[in-house]
């Protein structure tokens, strides 16, 4: 085996165990891995960002789109926050980011998580299951009503049992997701263990 790739395997295997050592105890060994990774990932993020900035600005300027100077200035404005009298300037680009995010969320979620979900509830694939899903969905939704509840009497009792069914539905869903995700987690761990065993046997075999 080539020296560099052998060294790579050794490093990867050692690094894996340094991180897993956290399970035994948070120790110096884990800390080295933690600090190395945070340093490396932050450096990598900067490299990627610089790449993105030079690529975007470079290609824009080369075709004469000088308007791209504006976002570049906005981007640099973030750094005025380190000098107190100009902190307010740094809030402007951040305000733009917040606006874009909230706008995208509003338009995306009303479609994907509201209308689409209602349509698939009232367009079931099987009748009986479809009706059960519709009823349980409404009970779950009732659990999220914050400002309204019936006053006293039998309505109140009925309402409370709807809430209970809603809560139970959520919990069954949580259990189901727990069980399904467990498969993925175990599979990924097995594939990591396989990597370690294979690496070690390759290293021993030379």
């Amino acid at each position: 085996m080539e020296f560099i790739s052998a060294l790579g395997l050794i490093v990867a295997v050692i690094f894996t165990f340094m991180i897993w050592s956290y399970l035994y105890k948070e120790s110096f060994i884990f800390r080295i891995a933690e600090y190395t990774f945070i340093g490396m990932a932050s450096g990598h993020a900067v490299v990627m960002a610089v790449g993105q900035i030079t690529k975007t600005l470079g290609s824009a300027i080369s075709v004469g789109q000088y308007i791209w100077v504006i976002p570049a200035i906005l981007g640099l404005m973030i750094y005025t926050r380190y000098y107190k009298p100009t902190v307010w300037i740094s809030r402007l680009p951040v305000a733009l980011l917040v606006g874009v995010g909230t706008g995208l969320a509003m338009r995306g979620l009303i479609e994907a998580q509201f209308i689409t979900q209602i349509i698939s509830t009232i367009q079931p694939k099987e009748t009986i299951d479809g009706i059960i899903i519709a009823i349980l969905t409404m009970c779950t939704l009732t659990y999220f009503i914050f400002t309204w509840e019936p006053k006293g009497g039998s309505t109140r009792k009925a309402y409370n049992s709807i809430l209970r069914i809603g809560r139970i539905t959520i919990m069954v869903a949580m259990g189901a997701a727990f069980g399904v995700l467990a498969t993925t987690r175990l599979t990924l761990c097995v594939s990591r263990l396989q990597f370690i065993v294979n690496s070690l046997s390759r290293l021993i075999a030379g």
Partner: protein
Amino acid sequence: MVFKEGRIATFFALVIVVGAILYFINRAKIGKISKIRKIPGLIAIEEAVGRATEMGGSVLFIPGIGGLTTVEGPETLAGISVLNYTAKLCARLGTKIVAAIRMPEVIPLAEEAISTAFRMEGKFEEYRPDMVRYLSSDQWGIATGAMGIMQRERVKANIMLGFFAGEALALAEAGAVAGAIQIAGTATNTTQLPWFASICDYCLFGEEVYVAGAVLSEDPIQLGSIAGQDVGKFMAICLITIGILMYLLKVDWLIRLLKI
């Protein structure tokens, strides 16, 4: 002005919800406030910070791993609002608080939230820059970093509110091993909720995450808007009821209406 095809019904649904929110905000402005049901996880924040203080430990806050510019944006903002409230409690009690951050553009918001809280409590001189810690833009950077902080800085209250992904299980379990009271919540990525629901002491589901800031602020205008959101829920319940009856009667114009 031309509507885009297939989005007309969606637009009107949005208009109804937003209209209801604005209506209730205006009602709140003239003093008519709706009562809001209690969310146990939010009440527990005070208890958690109190216990961390008693035990001489610190409070860790993670406003999710999402950024600002995508659909995860509002979830991050919800986390920041609760961070502001938690920081106020910490400033009042003199408890150490650390906010772990993944996306760099969230750093200014977190710093603003904590420093404002300390200033409002009249303890601005106790605010330190290392209360906000960027732990790299990698999902596992914030996970390993926060796991390290939990043990090294004796975290006794761990509050996680915002967008989370695969690292949710690692964070919740590491927090439990550290012996922290844990309050956690996430919304759009529902697949991560089971970890929070089973491992953490308190869990906020979906919409509860978004209203957390409003509830904690006790600001009547913000509270008013929650009543508007409830109108949306009544609308959904009505549509589902009518829709399923129509399905049984084999009529499909409601579905076609929703798809225009």
